């Protein structure tokens, strides 16, 4: 059985017919082939699948595709400028070496953008607490926190 689905992804209208069991992350990765959104666990803990739904960070592994009927979804592919220009948070992660293997990074960046939107003046403890739903195994978080603080400061990244 397939059910029609229509929504907006990265500013473009998308219509599809999907299996009711299909998760949003499967729809994003397998149907739309937007593979920047990753799957790192099966218990909604790691946050590698984080995308924005109507402007808020959500875990796309814990929603069915049909639950986002009519919503506006932004994935990592839609965060920066059209010509490959980085969003300030992406630029901050590069500037502060906030990523290593890159696997958790896309979800981490999507969470970080929402984090500062909700709490623009977040202090370090608040930043660390707000990252509870995103696991990184490479960085020890030190430079992830620095990246978010760099973005928060509005400083300009080097080339």
């Amino acid at each position, binding site marked *: 059985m397939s059910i029609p689905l229509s929504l907006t992804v990265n500013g473009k209208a998308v219509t599809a017919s999907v*299996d009711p*069991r299909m998760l949003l992350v499967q729809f994003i*990765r397998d149907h739309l*082939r*937007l*593979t*920047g*959104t*990753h*799957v*790192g*666990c*099966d*218990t909604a*803990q*790691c946050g*590698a699948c984080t995308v924005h739904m109507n402007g808020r960070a959500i875990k796309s592994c814990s929603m069915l595709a049909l639950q986002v009927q009519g919503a506006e979804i932004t*994935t*990592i*592919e839609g*965060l*920066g400028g059209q010509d*490959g220009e*980085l969003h300030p948070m*992406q630029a901050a*992660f*590069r*500037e*502060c*070496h906030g*990523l*290593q*293997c*890159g*696997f*958790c*990074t*896309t979800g981490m*960046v999507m969470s970080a953008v929402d984090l500062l939107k909700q709490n623009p003046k977040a202090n370090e*403890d608040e*930043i*660390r*607490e707000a*990252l*509870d739903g*995103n*696991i*990184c*195994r*490479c*960085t*020890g*978080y*030190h*430079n*992830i*926190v620095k990246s978010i603080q760099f973005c928060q400061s509005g400083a300009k990244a*080097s080339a």
Partner: protein
Amino acid sequence: MTDMSVPPMSSPIGQPLRRREDHRFLTGAGQYTDDVLMPGQTYGVFVRSPHAHARIGAIRTDAAKKAPGVVDIVLGSELVDAKVGGLPCGWLIHSKDGKPMNEPPHPVLAWEKVRHVGDQVALVIAETYLQAKDAAELVEVDYEELPAVIDTTKAASSSTLVHDGVPHNTCYDWGHGNKDAVDAAFKQAAHVTTLDIVNNRLIPNAMEPRAANAVYTRHDESYTLYVANQNPHVERLLMCAFVLGLPESKVRVIAPDVGGGFGSKIFLYPEETALVWASKRVGRPIKWTADRSEAFLTDAHGRDHVTKAELAMDAQGNFLALRVKTIANMGAYLSTFASSVPTILYATLLAGQYKTPAIYAEVQAVFTNTAPVDAYRGAGRPEATYVVERIVEQAAREMKMDPAKIRRQNFITEFPYATPVGLTYDVGNYAAHLDKAMEMADVAGFAARRQASEAKGKKRGLGYSCYIEACGIAPSNIAGALGARAGLFEAGEVRVHPTGTVTVFTGSHSHGQGHETTFAQVVAAKLGIPVDNVEIVHGDTGRIPFGMGTYGSRSLSVGGTAIVKAVDKVIAKGKKIAAHLLEAADTDVEFENGEFKVKGTDKKVPWGSVSLTAYVPHNYPLDKLEPGLNENAFYDPTNFTYPAGSYICEVEVDTETGKVKIEKFTAVDDFGNIVNPMIVAGQVHGGLGQGLGQAIMEGCHYDPESGQLLTGSYMDYAMPRAMDLPNYDIATTVTACSHNPLGVKGCGEAGAIGSPPAYINALTDALGVKEIAMPATPERVWRAANQQAA
């Protein structure tokens, strides 16, 4: 305290260049194995054992075969009939009695018996992932349950055998060092410190789960395997030569972007092997991606040592001898390098930074009904460092000596230094990093800080760890004599294009380490060309001459050196081309800053003219020189490299709740010369995070009776989150490695090696207790603080 500003462009070496790989990772353009989609793609799901130990009876697949979308189902008995071999172990250890280790079969798909929860029994292949998953549920397996061997310390005495042909569940009982000298030294000792230590079992948890996609191509009867792996050539060699009997020329292994490894993706695993075999039978590509539960159950785990250590000293606290007895858990099967971890990579490091004259280690490796255990970030060296640095700290307390003083007094100060456990340290200056760390940690002000904590009703402690590690395991002939079944060199190719841009093909593999930046900095510096003109290619046996891959912090010291040697060959040939253009003798041409010059004159040709001439050889010495500018090199190191450092951890403990706060963590490392300090700092942070994760919260637990994995998800296994880890104060000192041209040592594992003892030493110092087992959870800390048995 890394200086992150980029100084004006001089040599790219030593500069914190931002990483070239980051743009693709940050924009979702990275390509990991699960992102690869082939035409005609099918999906594989493994049927796995729900039991730790059982005999396999009938397997009924009729219902599953009729399920929608099912393409094929593969059983272990079919692989046996097809003469598919077992997975090999890459290192042969001999027991004390001279007998070779027990190497029971490691089947690609279990048959006759399953030996751990998650052991793979069948491969179901279907048109979609969900169809494969549904059909796998319909495969019926009859199991006759058997008692399970789980506890590391009870395995050898268990009446249950994991493998029928392996008595006492013992893989080997190995000894290393001079037992008689140690026994004699203990008789002379003024004081002996003893310590019982458990090095807790860990689950690696790279964020990208293991994945593979196997493609068989009929027209040339070849296979292509995409796999999340740290060493694709080793994967290909082991799979072709030992398991599937395929010529390597027909198998291409591609490890594209890989989302972290930490050792767990070094090994040849059953899943990708089954996929490659089945891809020919099915005639279509098969993709398998582990879900996190499978990763917990089947990725090779790490550590799991139980050790008794004794340190003999004279009355002044000089170390006389160290005696260590360790039981190491191998799990159910011997993973690729499992046997080497608690032996060659462990006992050889027991000298630490100290001139202990006599050392003897005994290691008994046992099989249990748990997932295989193999190398995990540090592999043997964290276990050795934990033994040495815990017992040294305890010895200082018993001798009523300052822990920094007892270390300093026993430091090796003259190099090269041959340890009693078989290594020769080439260079080092241990006092330099200890001094720097003590200054950064403000050890002088600790007493006052402790007083302030006590005034608040809290406890404060300070702990040291002066670790050493051995990286870039080598040379191959010595390793071979010690049982290695593989070479330990690295290969590199430097291909100069007509316009002077360069593609470098390296056998090292980057899965987070930033080689595409660091290696480009090295090549650009050597050739005097912009970093942007150098492209680094890795992770593809179809493009790279050969490779041993990335593990053991070897990439820059071994892989980087192979590249440097290839660059040197390019420059040597370039000089001959330039000499012809300049009408000079070869020996009169020198190369500097991207220009070939005739010594002592202003005659010169730029790099780009030489590269173009190599490929458009009109004015060229064709009679004595081949056209082209493309060189290969293999490099087999003459020795290990020996990074070393001093870590200091300061904690404050709330004894009412058992909550511990890391007030300050200082790490000073000597990695030799540094190419990119930003990337090195990142490696240290990550290593520290993993080491502290082990010390503070991580631990793998199996039910001791049923063998069910109790820590099988992120709901149960305590993965460190941002709130759990501190900021780090880090710095470096430098003694350049004496035997590679870059003078580099390796930085990938240091943090994970050095940090656990520093943390536990700080915690036991705070509470005034001898031992707290890792992970030092709040419950264990509370019990220790309140003197209740954990």
